[in-house]
């Protein structure tokens, strides 16, 4: 109903654009800490298909967030490279937007202002178009009534909805999500799983989703990649071929999750054993 007076550029702006294909080739990254050099990522190679939903799972400190930052272009790998549709990623860009764990919403702007932020940096749009696009995404995440709300007035779940709308608004080809639901309560999270799956189906994005919640990964991902820490490596890969939309409480899903959990624990033990030796 907002689009009664659709202008050409709004239609174009909201049109589905082809999602990206990602290729991560031999990416390594190490950090210097007070206790020496830590190899956060050790020759990671991975390809993500167009419109695929990939979840990276692992204990904290296994380098999965670092990989996400490298894909985003926020950090540079020591060696190796990331290709998005065949082009090397060197800087951040609005083709690949990130949704962060903690609220990275700007407190000096209201909800609508936050969603507009990325749109204002997009050329070739009139302000009227930007407003229409921003409102479309606020509606998509169910927050039309809260467009004038200050950020601190929103609940944790609503904040992450605004963050999702903000990340979607510039119509990126890739959505990078860094534990976006980790700080939310279980009920809110469940709701967002449903919404995210629906949005992913309707907006067709390539999504790389980092989490330490195995059940969450099994619920959302087409594939779950298990990371092992020190050095960060992809240990195992679990395709999840359950029908969508998936319910987090589904029995089959729980079975997949427990298999992944088992693998996660087993190399935790081998590592402990290795340290003990």
């Amino acid at each position, binding site marked *: 109903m907002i689009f009664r007076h659709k202008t050409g550029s709004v239609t174009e702006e909201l049109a589905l654009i082809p999602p990206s294909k990602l290729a991560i080739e031999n990416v390594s990254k190490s950090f210097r800490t007070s206790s020496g050099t830590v190899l956060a990522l050790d020759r990671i190679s991975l390809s993500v298909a167009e419109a695929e939903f990939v979840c990276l799972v692992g204990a904290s400190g296994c380098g999965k967030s670092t990989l996400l930052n490298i894909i985003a272009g926020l950090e540079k790998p020591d060696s190796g490279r990331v290709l998005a549709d065949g082009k090397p990623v060197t800087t*951040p860009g609005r083709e690949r937007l990130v949704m*962060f764990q903690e609220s990275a919403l*700007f407190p000096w702007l209201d909800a609508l202002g936050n969603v507009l932020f*990325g749109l204002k940096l997009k050329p070739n749009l009139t302000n009227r178009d930007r407003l229409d696009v921003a409102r479309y995404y606020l509606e998509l995440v169910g927050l039309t009534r809260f467009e004038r709300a*200050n950020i*601190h007035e929103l609940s944790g779940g609503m904040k992450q909805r605004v963050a999702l709308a903000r990340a979607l608004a*510039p119509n990126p080809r890739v959505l990078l999500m860094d534990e976006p639901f980790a700080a939310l309560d279980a009920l809110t999270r469940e709701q967002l799983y449903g919404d995210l799956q629906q949005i992913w189906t309707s907006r067709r994005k390539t999504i790389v989703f980092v989490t330490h919640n195995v059940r969450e990964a099994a619920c959302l991902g087409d594939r779950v990649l298990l990371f092992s820490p020190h050095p960060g490596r992809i240990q195992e890969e679990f395709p999840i071929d359950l029908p969508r939309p998936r319910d987090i409480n589904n029995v089959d899903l729980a079975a997949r999750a427990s298999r992944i959990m088992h693998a996660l624990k087993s190399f935790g033990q081998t590592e402990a054993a290795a340290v003990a030796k």
Partner: protein
Amino acid sequence: MKRLGLAILFFAFLVALWEWAFRARIWSPVLLPAPEQVAQYLKNAAEDGTLFHATLITMRRLLTGYLIGIIGGLPLGLLTARWKIFHDTIGTMALGLQTLPSVCWVPLALLWFGQSEAAMLFVVVMGTLWSVVIATDTGVRNVPPIYRRAALTMGSKRLHMWFRVILPAALPFIVSGMKQGWAFAWRSLMAAEIFVTILTGFGLGQLLHYGRELSAMDQVIAIMLVIVVIGLLADKIFFSPIESFLHRRWGTSP
């Protein structure tokens, strides 16, 4: 309404106390005139234009110096926050000079600029500048890095990043620095006006000074009251709305 009533009651009580002290002859009437005498002075000074004129001159000096201080302080603060070399040099100097009570600039200003407007302007700028530099620097340093990262991914860089992300994010600090700068500017101007007796215009400080020279206690107290009221008004009219806006947006309690 209730709060306003209580406040009025409080000030009425203070005036009553004063009146009582005057009538009880605790101090000589030369040292403590009656509230009525002070009111009379204010009325006369308001009617013959002295008060208005002096206030205008003082405000002109204050605003000029204050604006120069802010216009100079903001970019300097950004520089010190952005580059280590500026932080170690200008930043350290700002920190040092900020601790210097602004009245200490008066002797130097007098020797450099003589009994002139420039001397007063200099003192006010020195009073304002360093607080603004420090506050901007602190504000920028306290911007959570995640804002920068989020903005980067959305395509913000350089000037856009500074004006649309870092400055707004640092705003609460910058505003409190501006408020502190205002207080320092006000103090230093009064010090300057009391010490610098020039013929380019009589400010409130000079009225205060001549009140003392003439042992006109009613004038001294009246001018002090005017200075207090101006300070209060500046706070209520200018800073309070900005601060309450920030509190509403950021969700910090006032």
